[in-house]
């Protein structure tokens, strides 16, 4: 599956719904659907909020089932500003850390919900790939 969405929060339900449809088609558990919905939201919202500071842009979503439908690979590609969400240190989850720092929790959740997360910048595009065993 490959779809392109405007990088705007209003499209969040369509984005997560598109991935969920693939998961439902292969009988994924509610828990896995939750975990993947969360990871997909965090990545898409990052692109929508920060990817195009000077205007509007798009986010391309592709999903593929691998290994006899036992794994899903989800990739977000955008032409926004260069941004590697994995490059930051993980959020400090101590009480002081949580209260003093904004941000970082989304990526922490993505890393914990998905089995593999990789980023690359190629041909002027950010590409964020996530893989999870279903």
């Amino acid at each position, binding site marked *: 599956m490959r779809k392109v969405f405007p990088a705007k*929060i*209003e499209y*969040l*339900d369509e984005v997560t719904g598109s991935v969920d449809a693939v998961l439902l088609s292969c009988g994924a558990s*509610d*828990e896995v659907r*939750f*975990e993947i*919905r*969360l990871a997909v*939201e*965090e990545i898409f*919202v990052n692109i*929508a909020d920060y990817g195009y500071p000077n205007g509007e842009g798009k986010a391309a979503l592709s999903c593929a089932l691998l290994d006899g439908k036992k794994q899903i690979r989800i990739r977000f590609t955008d032409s926004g500003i260069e941004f590697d969400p994995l490059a930051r240190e993980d*959020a400090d*989850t*101590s*009480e002081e*850390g*949580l*209260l003093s720092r*904004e941000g970082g*929790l*989304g990526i*922490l*959740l993505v890393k*914990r919900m998905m089995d593999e997360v990789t980023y690359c910048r190629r041909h002027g595009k950010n590409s964020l790939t996530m893989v999870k065993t279903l």
Partner: protein
Amino acid sequence: MSMKMNLIKRGSEGELQMIGYIDAQNAAEVEKILTDLTKQFDVLILDMEKLEYVSSAGLRALKRAYVEMRAKHGTLAAKNVGRSVMEVLEITGFTRLFKFV
């Protein structure tokens, strides 16, 4: 996705039943409702039995409620947290912000 909330008032204690999702689309609205409630009550209990989903945007709303409550020496509590939501609270350290009842 959306959230519906039912409030039970018991004097200075309020119990809020949260039904649905908190995501990036409705988190600001949820945050406003929670902060209004922190002004109204000394103890605010969030019943999360029917809270099906919370993302980092939702966590920010919960964090704001915690900060407001703490500033007035009140209590923010949570109950009936489902497994997936609890996983999110544990991973992010947000279990520290709630009294679990």
